[in-house]
């Protein structure tokens, strides 16, 4: 019998049809997917006894407490710490997966000079030469850290300038600095005691401030209740996740926050709903209604609703002065459940966003988000743990990644109480990696290194004998026998928490209603102002698109 081409095809069709009814395709699909996860060049945690170490997340300035599971000296898991006084066990999705960032494929491992491979020696020579030729600007993303002190000292010695890139939460506090004279870095929100929050686009339930703090408060005091103890009124053009979960939501025109704040303030004053007698906003109620997209009746109802359950505080998503002025009228500044002064030692810093004239070089620390572009023609030395693609940086310098560097964690920008913690270096940084502080220390060996600055800060805490140390148990600092013991506990994951300041110490003088400087800035909402933490753009993009965090492109019409 002759086998024809047709026989082969029919046999093949039969075999294919038969295979569908066997486990071959499904089992191979499963096994091949696992096989791709186990290629030998993909890092795998080793099977060793697991050790758990306490530390702090350094992906953003809030420093949530973390428990790091270590196997064979490598981190294999991250979880929250319930004893942390601010985060109380909560972490953002990025924090939970942060131990994998040290293996990120875009990890920077070599010095690059204008897209060519270079060396640390050449970078040192270039930076030292720049220092001799003109002023240098150091840009920091986490002011208040031990490295920040080193940066400030270096800038001062070089007659340069120390600048700061602040997040939107910190920027929202800047108007109060103008009116009270207290630095914005010394202010915070007393969220634990507030009962009504008017959020002008701030993503409170979506990673705002210390991730998890508000989510926890919401779960404890509001979620699922028809008339919750904690009312959240979200004013936002789009139906963000925070808006969808809020107790009340007002959909306004993009950029209408300033007008609406003025309209609410006018109703509060006209109907004497507040005790404060502040300046009357120049906008009429009709103008506010037209610009915000709400009716005049809706603005009146909103104003009455806001004052219905004090203490009340308005939270802006940026430095909108009208919303800050509304807080002054509401009596939310310097009161329990409002905006409070947490520190007497904080100082204000120059922002890095302004144009940097007559500068020879700019050094950008790895804590500065990748999307920050200095407004200058000077030579830029950019430290980063990950390569974020195109950047206005002449020098790209590989910095230590997550858990690879000893650093301290000062008070979170939105916190109402002072805290201090130390994130130890749990993982050895790969060869060829240097932090900006180490780099400057080599340029100027007289600078005090970071570990000594941290030790000095611990000594100051010990000498002050104030506050408590929060670990599994809470211990007053006065009960700790030595500074070495204090530092050891801090390095093991304990948090120092200061005494609460008296809220009445903060006073704002508002002689006239602030000019509407931001009405031309649509849309001033959470999606427009949200900034990814210190991550490469690709990771930030994946983070946004993976539904972990809404990005502008996901905005509802």
């Amino acid at each position, binding site marked *: 019998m002759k086998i024809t081409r047709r026989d082969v095809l029919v046999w093949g069709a*039969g075999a294919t049809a038969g295979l569908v009814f066997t486990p071959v395709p499904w089992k191979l699909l499963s096994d*091949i997917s*696992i096989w791709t996860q186990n290629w030998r060049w993909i890092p795998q945690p080793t099977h060793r006894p697991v050790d758990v170490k306490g530390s702090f997340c350094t992906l953003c300035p809030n420093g949530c407490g973390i428990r790091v599971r270590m196997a064979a000296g490598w981190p294999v898991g991250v979880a929250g710490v319930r004893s942390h006084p601010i985060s109380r066990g909560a972490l953002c999705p990025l924090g939970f997966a942060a131990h994998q960032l040290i293996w990120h494929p875009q990890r920077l491992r070599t010095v690059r000079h204008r897209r060519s491979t270079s060396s640390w020696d050449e970078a040192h020579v270039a930076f030292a030469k720049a220092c001799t030729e003109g002023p240098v600007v150091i840009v920091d993303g986490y002011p208040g850290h031990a490295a920040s002190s080193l940066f400030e000292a270096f800038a001062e010695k070089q007659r340069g300038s120390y600048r700061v890139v602040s997040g939107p939460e910190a920027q929202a506090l800047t108007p109060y600095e103008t009116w009270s004279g207290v630095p914005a870095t010394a202010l915070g929100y007393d969220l634990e005691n507030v009962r009504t929050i008017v959020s002008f686009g701030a993503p409170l339930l979506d990673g705002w401030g210390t991730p998890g703090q508000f989510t926890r408060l919401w779960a404890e005091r509001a979620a699922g209740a028809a008339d919750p103890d904690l009312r959240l009124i979200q004013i936002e053009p789009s139906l963000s996740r925070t808006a969808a979960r809020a107790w009340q939501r007002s959909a306004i025109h993009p950029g209408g926050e300033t007008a609406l704040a003025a309209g609410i303030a006018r109703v509060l004053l006209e109907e004497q709903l507040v005790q404060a007698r502040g300046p009357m906003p120049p906008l009429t109620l009709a103008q506010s209604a037209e610009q915000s997209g709400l009716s005049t009746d809706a603005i009146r109802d909103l104003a009455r609703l806001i004052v219905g359950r004090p203490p009340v505080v308005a939270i802006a998503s940026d430095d909108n002065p009208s919303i800050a002025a509304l807080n002054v009228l509401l009596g939310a500044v310097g009161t329990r459940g409002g905006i409070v002064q947490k520190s007497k030692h904080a100082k204000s810093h120059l922002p890095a966003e302004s144009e940097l004239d007559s500068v020879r070089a700019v050094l950008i620390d790895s804590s500065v988000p990748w999307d920050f572009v200095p407004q200058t023609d000077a030579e830029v030395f950019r430290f980063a743990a990950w390569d974020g693609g195109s950047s206005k940086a002449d020098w790209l310098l590989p910095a230590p990644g997550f858990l690879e560097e000893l650093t301290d964690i000062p008070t979170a920008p939105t916190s109402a109480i002072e805290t201090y913690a130390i994130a130890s270096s749990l993982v050895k940084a790969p060869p060829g990696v240097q932090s900006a502080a180490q780099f400057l220390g080599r340029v100027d060996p007289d600078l005090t290194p970071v570990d000594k600055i941290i030790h000095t800060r611990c000594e100051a805490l010990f000498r002050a004998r104030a506050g408590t140390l929060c670990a599994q148990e809470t211990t007053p600092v006065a009960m700790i026998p030595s500074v070495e013991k204090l530092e050891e506990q801090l390095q093991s994951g304990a948090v120092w928490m200061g005494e609460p300041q008296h809220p009445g110490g903060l006073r704002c003088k508002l002689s006239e209603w602030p000019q509407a400087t931001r009405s031309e800035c649509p849309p001033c909402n959470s999606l427009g102002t949200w900034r990814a933490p210190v991550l490469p753009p690709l990771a930030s993009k994946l983070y946004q698109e993976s539904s972990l965090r809404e990005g502008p492109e996901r905005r509802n019409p």
Partner: protein
Amino acid sequence: MNATRNTFVFGLGVAIALLAGWVIFPRALYVRQNQLLAFHHKTHAEKSGFTECGQCHALRDDGTFGGIPSSDTCTSCHSERMGASHDEAVLVDNYVKTGQEVPWLVYARQPANVWFSHAIHVQRAGLACAECHSTYGQSDEVRIYEQNRLSGYSRDIWGHSISRIRLGRHDGMKMDDCEDCHRRHHVQAGCLGCHQ
């Protein structure tokens, strides 16, 4: 005539595919390996008087699982040869006297991205060891270790039926099996419960 021939050839293709898929494929997919030493659970339990799995496979003080006992544990009885078998000679000469660990092939080893706590499942939830490990601990059978050529995992993870039709609760240790058990016990572990 042509239709009959085509049907026959098509059926032949189907039959060969079914034979290959259900009989040849599972044998080709797994590498069969013998344990280095023939360890008999039942014999050891009878001679030592141990009645609980945890007496050898103990939890450490910090709650982590000790896994397979170390060579030190064997030393208490096998410091010298207790018989004339080849395995006994290998155990005593190569491992007990040198202090090296026996490279046991672990049937239930999970992938590195799984965090499984024996303490939570055994002590808190009160699950019996046999729920996951069957009654292997009561037998004198030395099982063949079958390793998947592609994934590198033990066959116990997928389960012994290539079709994933489970023969018992202990058959299979994939995520579906964990979820199934959690569902039956009304436990919500979430992603991070196991993938920390």
